[in-house]
């Protein structure tokens, strides 16, 4: 079922991607990622001593700060921060520097839709640029099903270091209504 979207793309076509590393001079790691018109800048600052109150002192803590293009920080930004934080906590090796905080700052430069998937990629590239030890690299995959008008955005494991390519899903964000079997088929399709 090939429906054309507003800008002429088919249902399974992505917008042009581009990624640049080490864009910021003072940050320990930085990356800029753009997908079509959506552009996001990520900066990583090294482990600093001390963790927050509720966090485990045996492990490193990751702090994500999301800066929208304009306007005040509200609930939506907090939600993005939380999702990104959980995803990145699964990728990073947290035992290397216990009792430290790594800060990741996401700045939205231009917003043209699909912000969250677009933000995972520069966050991960900036972590690699800073030299933070990672277990895997996280890439996003987007699926959408035009027929039922639902969109499924997910981030998946792209590569396990030391082993063959094996796909798994770390985080998935769904909007809309789907049956349970629909969710599973979407997930399997995304894993391929």
């Amino acid at each position, binding site marked *: 079922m090939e429906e054309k979207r507003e800008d002429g793309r088919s249902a399974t076509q992505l917008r042009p991607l581009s990624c640049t590393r080490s864009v910021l001079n003072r940050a*320990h*790691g930085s990356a800029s990622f753009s997908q079509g018109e959506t552009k996001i800048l990520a900066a990583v600052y*090294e*482990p*600093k*001593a001390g963790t927050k109150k509720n966090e485990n002192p045996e492990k490193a803590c990751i702090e994500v700060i999301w800066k929208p293009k304009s306007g005040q920080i509200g609930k939506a930004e907090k939600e993005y921060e939380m999702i990104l934080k959980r995803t990145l906590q699964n990728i990073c*090796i947290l*035992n*290397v*520097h*216990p*009792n*430290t905080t790594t800060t990741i700052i996401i700045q939205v430069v231009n917003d043209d839709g699909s912000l969250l998937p677009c933000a995972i990629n520069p966050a991960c590239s900036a972590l*690699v*640029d*800073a*030299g933070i*030890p*990672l*277990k895997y690299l996280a890439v996003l995959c987007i699926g959408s099903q035009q027929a039922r008008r639902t969109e499924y955005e997910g981030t998946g494991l792209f590569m396990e*270091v030391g082993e063959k390519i094996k796909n798994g899903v770390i985080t998935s964000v769904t909007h809309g209504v789907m049956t349970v079997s629909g969710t599973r088929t979407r997930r399997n399709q995304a894993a391929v």
Partner: protein
Amino acid sequence: MKAGKLRFAKPNKYWVESSHKRYVPCAGDTVLGIVVDSKADNFLVDIKGPTLAFLPVLAFEGGTRRNIPKFEMGTLLYARVVMANTGMNPELACMDATGKAAEFGPLKDGYMFESTTGLSRMLLKSPPCPLLETLGKKLAFEIAVGLNGRVWVNASSPSIIILVANSIMKSESLSPVQQKIMVDNLLQRVQ
């Protein structure tokens, strides 16, 4: 697991070399630290790592309780990392393994700037990198390189210091031949 270039040395040594702005403390490294605070038993020194490092007050050549050195906040020190375990603050010493001073200690005058760890390693290579050789043939200067990404330069006049610092900062991504060409151009412009 860090990203970097795969290096090979005969007969069978492979390793991944990466260059970052962060420093991970490792025992046996020589680093440039800045004194942040002084406690009863040790100085707290910032070495660009995840935590501050401790420099015991007696870790100097001929150090006793009677002649404890007094460092102000902001003093630049050239020290050696004695112990660096995860979870603990690293420990420094201003003397080498045998107890001699060996150029360790506070650095006076001069100019300190930050670089990446890869650039520090390149500056400390032996035989010396072509950048330092070419600069050394024409100019007289003194440098101290810390493996934590800090470099200190001292010379008789500020213009020489600036020239050396700029050429080091620019040479990070250049090959040896390109470094030599760049330094020759800079020197020609000055003299």
